[in-house]
């Protein structure tokens, strides 16, 4: 295999990869519709959903591969990540976009997507993710909620034969192989809207309970941050779309 194929500067195919579980009544449909507009293929691992998630996924033509787990592997996150990764790589993609079922790339990011992947200088792209809070007009920004202050690597070049490694952890496994960090990357100022917290007060409370039940001693995350989910008046900043 020749070096030109290690880093293709044009004609790269983009495959989106998602891991889903019981998302039918949330943002999944909008996410898949959104992805349909700018990716070439979508690969999904369904972690034993009991609602209409699988049916919804199948309704999108660009979903080229859908793996349905009968038993949930939620508590073996490392295995789930690896399963999705391997399934996505089988589509022989040029680039892979790791997306959660509640993440939306801003229009500007979508417009730049082909430029980002059709080059041979860098192998991953970092975006700024914003945690929307209580709705889709504001994001949260305070000491404990500032993921947008750093970059999150979610778009990567697929290089066959490279050494891909996920740490074998049950929770908080990175969405993409850690070894991308050794490859050259590009830190973009393009933004991603995360709607995971753009829910009602009641749903926020249920999410708090789930986090506390799953990680009562703050082994995988920060207890202080879990508790901050219940803050009555979090600092919210209005989102401004950019042309």
């Amino acid at each position, binding site marked *: 295999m020749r070096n030109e194929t290690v880093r293709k500067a044009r004609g790269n195919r983009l495959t989106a990869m998602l891991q889903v579980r019981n998302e039918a009544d949330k943002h999944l449909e909008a996410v898949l519709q959104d992805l349909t507009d700018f990716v070439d293929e979508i690969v999904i691992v369904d972690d034993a959903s009991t609602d209409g998630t699988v049916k919804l996924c199948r309704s999108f033509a660009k979903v080229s591969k859908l793996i349905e787990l009968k038993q949930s592997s939620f508590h073996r996150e490392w295995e789930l990540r690896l399963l999705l990764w391997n399934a996505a790589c089988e589509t022989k993609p040029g680039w892979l976009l790791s997306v959660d079922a509640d993440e939306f790339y801003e229009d500007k990011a979508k417009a730049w997507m082909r430029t980002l992947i059709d080059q041979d200088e860098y192998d991953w792209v970092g975006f700024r993710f914003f945690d929307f809070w209580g709705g889709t007009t504001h994001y949260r920004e305070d000491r404990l909620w500032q993921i947008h202050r750093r970059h999150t690597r979610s778009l990567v070049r697929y290089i066959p034969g490279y050494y891909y490694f996920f740490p074998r952890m049950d929770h908080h496994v990175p969405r993409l192989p850690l*070894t991308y960090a*050794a490859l050259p990357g590009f830190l973009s100022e393009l933004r991603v809207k995360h709607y995971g917290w753009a829910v009602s007060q009641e749903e926020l409370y249920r999410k708090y309970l789930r986090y506390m039940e799953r990680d009562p001693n703050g082994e995988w995350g920060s207890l202080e941050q879990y508790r901050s989910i219940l803050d009555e008046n979090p600092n919210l900043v209005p989102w401004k779309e950019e042309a």
Partner: protein
Amino acid sequence: MFFGADGKPDDDANGIRPVSLLDLARLNRGEYGAVVTSPYLLPCVRLIQPRIVIAIAERRDEADSSETLRKFHGLMAAQADLIATSSEKIYLEMCFRYDHVLYMPNDIEESGTVWTEAISAKLRGESTDVWMHRQWEAQAAFYRNWHERIGDHETICYLLASYQYLLGRSSAKSYLSLSFEQMMIKEFTDCLRTHYRFFSAMDAKEGDLEAAVRVYAITALTDEERSRVRVLQAYLDQGRTDLAKAELFRLNDDYRNAIGTLLRSDDPEAGSHLLRCYLPVYRYQEALQLLERIRKQTPERYLADLLRGTLDMLSGKRHEAIHAFLRAAAKDWLLLGHMAELERWELETEFALGRHRHA
């Protein structure tokens, strides 16, 4: 006996006695072995025409590691019949360059035996391979033991991978993988060339050149590196596997295996590739012999003059060195810079001898 200023109080008891430069000149030629610790003492070593020259390579201060000084120490190592060091960093670097390197850590009893046996082997004209292998085995066992005790650690796994590689074992890859993983977990991300690229040398050693070139290509980020990939790929396409393999070793700083591959090769261009491997590791004697042999292929005669001048300089043949450098400079006046190197050499040599004279 020793010539120098570093005598110890118990030298007498150990039968070691200091000698002057004059005494040194009176010693019977070919009867002694010389252990040399400074390149500036090489002209003195020539005085006794020793049966064996052992270079002691030691760690130097950062401030004292100019390119010229590195070159002088490199030349000393390349001129020696055996190289010994107590620094593992230098030891490993040397193992990737030369065929006759011994590790002499102060705290390992066995090193004394290896030392004696290796010198005896060398005096009998035998290869020191068996002793080098024995030391690699010992080092690999040492780090395997550490690995079992403390688990995966980036440095321990990397060293273990290096020794397994030197021993030609496929397990080198597993340990390099562990080291690479640990580097990532600990966010030491600047290791594509230092760690990941090493896989290409391992693939090359296993004979999987397609994989080796591919791994190297992944690490090729600059224009120069990418042009090297094109050259490597062309070699593979043309079936010139020796050149591809040697180049992959060279790109991983494994000059020893690169040179070994090229020496066994019958590719018509192997000679010019050998030259590229000899020069960075200061194996000037071999480079000069090669240049004489492939004279027709290398119009750069000035290179032979440069090498000859440097070797003359090391032997204390000042006038011959000057003549050789001037001949080379006729081709390119910038090469007169070597006269400054000669001057530095002479100053340092004078300083070293003066210090020893007054000791």
